[in-house]
């Protein structure tokens, strides 16, 4: 506990944007064949620094086969609400779940990111025993502590019982138990986020572990058996209040991105693929008169490609689906970034009018058929995937791996880890920075990125921007 609130807690999104820019990017590394322990890379992103665009520290885990995916901070700007009662936490610990092992690492980033080290390891058995959940995924800090979503229930293959969210103590990192009191019709899980003053949570659906751990199951996808619902919850009452079916053809509703400004009661959701036409889609949800609504507000078409450029999985279709695997919203709620992992494109939509996204910028890099190299000439395997935006909205970072077994199906030649950055024009537009290129140690792939001092998919706010 500190004597004053952490200077990286910002009351409003506007104050977060005005704060000093990030100096370090934390990136998760995974060993796709589980031959090496997964790791956390600390990257210098301070322009002008002698080690700019290089890994300056690596925290290697003591186990193999964790499969790192998403992670999050122990505390963020949400602590500045008196309702939470923990204003004197520090943004200090990274909570890193292993999506395959169900183990959680707590990494201490103080006194300096270049000395980050493991603080605590929560073994899978503790999570199984206390929650009945497995495969921990998204991490957010909020009123009751640290919230972690999971993809699996109990049992060896995670299908005994429904996956959900559990809570960890934000001081001791003890697993406390399930969050839900009444899950309603919710059966699958993926991402979640909320509006704290308005007191609601939104959750999305990917699939159960047998549908993803050994690779995508094409029969299940074509039978529309992946997730296609979005759920709205009363956050403090821990109760499902509304479930909306997007239509069974809208397979895999993944990232949930509410507007950062809590006065805005809307947000976005990315859907990976429409099984009727291979489109990817962006959906806008909003709350009006107490109930939630959602509609498809942007679509991205597949791109035809000759059979010889396609992996066996896609050869029957003769086209590359865009595969919207991640979306991220800038702190001012103006630009929505959309990763098209299949076609190899990062799109930037102006969402000032949230139900009418306008394409404002785009860069191509990688892609199943296009295989666009980086402007520095290097080959970029995979496509744009996990994306993170600087608080000031001027820099957009992304990596290239989706998930070990899925990478191999869509990019059989392999997806060596890479991280790039694009700069954003004052009125939109994206341009890849020639001098920013992170190549990771051999045999590692790269997944989610977190920025020191907070980023656009970490912090939630209790006060509006004024």
């Amino acid at each position, binding site marked *: 506990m500190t004597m004053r609130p952490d200077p990286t807690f910002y009351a409003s999104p506007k104050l977060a944007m005005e704060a000093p820019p990030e100096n370090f990017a934390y990136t998760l590394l995974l060993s796709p064949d589980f031959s090496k322990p997964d790791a956390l890379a600390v990257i210098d992103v301070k322009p002008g620094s002698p080690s700019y665009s290089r890994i300056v520290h690596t925290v290697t885990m003591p186990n193999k086969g964790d499969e790192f995916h998403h992670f999050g901070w122990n505390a963020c700007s949400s602590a*500045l609400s*008196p*309702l939470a*009662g923990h204003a004197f936490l520090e943004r200090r610990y990274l909570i890193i779940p292993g999506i395959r092992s169900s183990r959680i690492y707590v990494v201490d980033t103080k006194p300096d990111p270049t000395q980050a080290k493991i603080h605590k390891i929560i073994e899978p058995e503790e999570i199984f025993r206390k929650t009945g959940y497995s495969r921990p995924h998204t991490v957010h800090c909020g009123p*009751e502590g640290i919230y972690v979503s999971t993809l699996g229930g109990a049992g060896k293959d995670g299908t005994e019982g429904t996956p959900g969210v559990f809570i960890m103590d934000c001081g001791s990192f003890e697993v406390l138990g399930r969050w839900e009191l009444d899950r309603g019709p919710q059966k699958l899980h993926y991402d979640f986020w909320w509006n704290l*003053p308005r007191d609601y949570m939104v959750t999305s659906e990917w699939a159960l572990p047998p549908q993803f751990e050994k690779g995508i199951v094409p029969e299940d996808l074509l039978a529309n058996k992946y997730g296609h619902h979005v759920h709205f919850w009363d956050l*403090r009452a821990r109760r499902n209040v509304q479930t909306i079916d997007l239509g069974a053809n809208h397979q895999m509703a993944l990232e949930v991105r509410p507007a950062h400004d809590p006065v805005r009661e809307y947000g976005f959701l990315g859907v990976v693929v429409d099984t009727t036409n291979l489109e990817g889609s962006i959906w806008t949800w909003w709350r009006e008169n107490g109930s939630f609504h959602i509609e498809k507000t942007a679509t991205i078409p597949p791109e035809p490609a000759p059979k010889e450029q396609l992996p066996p999985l896609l050869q029957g279709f003769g086209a590359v689906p865009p595969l919207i695997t991640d979306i991220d919203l800038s702190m001012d709620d103006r630009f929505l970034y959309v990763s098209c992992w299949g076609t190899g494109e990062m799109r930037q939509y102006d969402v000032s009018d949230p139900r009418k996204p306008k394409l404002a910028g785009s860069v191509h890099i990688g892609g199943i058929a296009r295989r666009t190299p980086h402007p520095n000439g290097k080959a970029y395997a995979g496509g744009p995937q996990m994306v993170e935006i600087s608080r000031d909205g001027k820099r957009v970072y992304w990596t290239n791996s989706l998930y070990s077994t899925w990478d191999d199906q869509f990019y059989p030649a392999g997806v060596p880890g890479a991280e790039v950055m694009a700069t954003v024009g004052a009125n939109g537009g994206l341009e890849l920075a020639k001098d920013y290129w992170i190549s990771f140690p051999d045999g590692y792939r790269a997944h989610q990125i977190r920025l020191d001092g907070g980023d656009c998919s970490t912090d939630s706010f209790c*006060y509006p921007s004024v």
Partner: protein
Amino acid sequence: MSGAGWTTFSLWLAVIASGLYHGANPGMGWPLAVSAGLMERRPRALVAALLPLLAGHLLAMLAVILPFALLVTLVEWQRPIQLGASLLVIGFGLFRLVNRRHPRALARIPPTQLGLWSFAVAIAHGAGLMLVPIYLGLCGEADRGHAAAESLIGKDVCVAALVSVVHAAAMIAAGGLLAWLAYRYLGLKFVSRSWFNLEASWAASLILVGTVALVLSLVG
């Protein structure tokens, strides 16, 4: 002023000072009024949030002090009651010193129930207990020997209500002023700038108030 007059005066000052202290602490809720005002973009929403904060705090004071108002009518037990109350306050202060965690149950209270939250946070932090020794001091200053029990009960309850009201008024005056300054002039940066970790000094305040009362009741 006589010696007793001075004591009464300083006890009332302590009632007001503790109110200002509670109200100025962001942890007691004034930033929630700033948020409410900004969310609705009108000052009326700020005032509307201050009212339940005030009501919750006032009820928390009454809930703790009123039982003591009934107890102190037992004149012959006056000293043991004062000793017991002092020890209770010291004990709670020591507990807060060791366990500075905010009870997680409070985070379950929805933002729409600010009155309940304000009541619960005041109880959980012993805000009412801090007033008990002061209140007992005020009761002790009155000439009690010759009054009939019924009139004493009425008088003690009145003093208890007055102590709670004056304290809560001071609390909301301080909190309301800071909320208004942040809302109108100083901006949201003031929310984090004005926030100091008072958990230790809060616990110390409880121990201090309890100890002073203990010493006074032993020598008095």
